[in-house]
């Protein structure tokens, strides 16, 4: 937990200009996350909107519950819901990006393995679009932003138990051959939240 972030938010309640420092610290993270789920143009808009919403709602931020970064990404996640069509295209782009990287590599080196990987990514991107939005939010905050369970709970304003249940449900839907359980448990332990209940 970054106490500097918390101090900035607390200070910004009396000195609003302090909030600009949070922008400088987290703008790149917010934009990267938004761009990974939408496109650059939408991400540009989401960057601005996220910090405007955060500024307006900073008085509600609860420092006891988690990191500012998670809180900001949660706001971005909520805003992304307005852009589902763009989001779906982004996941299609995920598969295309993987394919292009494979095609640009040495075509004769481990070609079969790489093509298998491309097929897996294509399947995964397709499955991502089929997930319920709430489940997808949890999976991507976990996998791409590497947030802890607790930070995901803060970001999405849901109980810790709901984070677990959504991850489990997503695991099931993403494919029986994808062994999430062990990995998720390892991640949870790594963040020091093993055994924590909602």
């Amino acid at each position: 937990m970054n106490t500097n972030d918390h101090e900035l938010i607390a200070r910004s309640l009396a000195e609003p200009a302090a909030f600009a420092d949070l922008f400088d610290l987290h703008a790149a993270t917010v934009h990267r996350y938004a761009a990974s789920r939408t496109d650059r143009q939408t991400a540009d808009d989401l960057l601005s909107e996220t910090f405007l919403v955060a500024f307006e709602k900073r008085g509600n931020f609860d420092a006891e519950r988690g990191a500012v970064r998670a809180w900001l990404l949660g706001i971005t996640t909520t805003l992304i819901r307005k852009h589902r069509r763009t989001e779906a295209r982004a996941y299609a782009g995920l598969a295309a990006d993987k394919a292009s990287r494979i095609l640009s590599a040495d075509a004769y080196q481990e070609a079969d393995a790489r093509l298998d990987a491309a097929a897996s990514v294509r399947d995964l991107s397709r499955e991502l679009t089929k997930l319920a939005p709430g489940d997808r939010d949890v999976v991507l905050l976990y996998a791409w932003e590497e947030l802890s369970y607790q930070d995901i709970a803060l970001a999405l304003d849901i109980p810790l138990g709901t984070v677990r249940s959504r991850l489990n449900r997503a695991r099931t839907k993403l494919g029986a051959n994808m062994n999430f359980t062990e990995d998720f448990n390892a991640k949870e332990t790594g963040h020091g939240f093993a055994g924590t209940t909602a």
Partner: protein
Amino acid sequence: MDSLELLRENRPEGERPTPEAVTAARAALMNAIEAEKKGSTARTKSAPKRRLSGGWRWALGGAVAAVAASAIVLSQVLVPAGQPGAPTNAVAAALNEAADRAAATDTTLQPGQLRKTSITGISTIRWATERDDNSPITSRSRSTIYLPRDRSDAWYYQPGVSDQYKAYDKEGWAWIAENPESTPRGSVNAPTLLFRGLNGIFTRATKPMANGDLNNPELAKVGTDPSALLTHLRETAKQSKLDEGGQNAAQLAADNSAFESAVDRLVFENIVNLFADPTATPAQQATLYRTLALMPTDRVHTTQLQKDGLSLTRFEWSGNIGDEAPATATQITVDSSNGLVHSVSDIRLKSEDNIPVGTVMGSVTFNYEVLDAAPSGAFAADRPLPKCVSGDRPPKGYNTCGEPMQGGSAWGSLD
């Protein structure tokens, strides 16, 4: 490899934001911060396209009605289809011609005469309502100012109220109905009063009038040398961009092309802000025309000459490479009778965030008359201040204790 690892390994890189996007986002945040510091209660979702400083405050205080027949009809504008370039000689010539005519107009007002400017302002602001984060509302208002040639003589001013408004969805209309004091509807049926002031400063019953200083300090810097003004505006814009860039300032400045585009855009915006101020003298407008004629265009801007030779349109691209159509048009039209600015408008050319194509995001229109005598009517100084306790709900016709709303007429939809 399990699917989680696969997902992580193939996380999209995500394109980096352009320096302009970072600057714009930071500037929007800074505007929100400034608004809060000033105690504004307006909950705008994002910063208005233009800062409501300088002349653009008139977009909220007066109103423009229908654009006069000589002004732009959007469909007549020749969209350049992504081919911005250097300003043509014809554009520069038209600007300089307008400057000549405006400068000549400066001398036509005789001692004792006043130039009456009827102002119509239109403003579209996105409001964050309880149920919808993005409800645009357009309001229209009217006001009038009477200015002597010698600005040290008395000024007369009839402030405006928003008399019409428009929402674009059910949420917007509902929010207007539920928040009458926060919207144009709150100023309905207010008394119409006239103010008299010296040097652009207005008082009421010896008390300073809220927003009663009509002097625009930026206008005082315009001078008569367009080259000097352009240099000043560019230096100011550069510093402003670097300040807004925060920790990204160095990166911003290093990307010379993007930085220069951003500076040019801000310079143009500042010139438009000055044109949008009805207190600008004809001589100041002349300098502004000549300064515009000196400005280069770039990848995100171009200037087109309207068919009648009196209207100029600046198209603004989003700044993203590959965009084939501009996102907004800024239009300046010139009054054919005197060379003075007739209107300044920002018009949306792309539908976005519930705001349809063709929406006027901000506009001021001026209609001029020459009067031989000062206006007469109910002067504010002759009316008693209302009795009320600070913090109480204000009496009908007053926006706060002691500050009457002005003007007022039947309100209704802009449709």
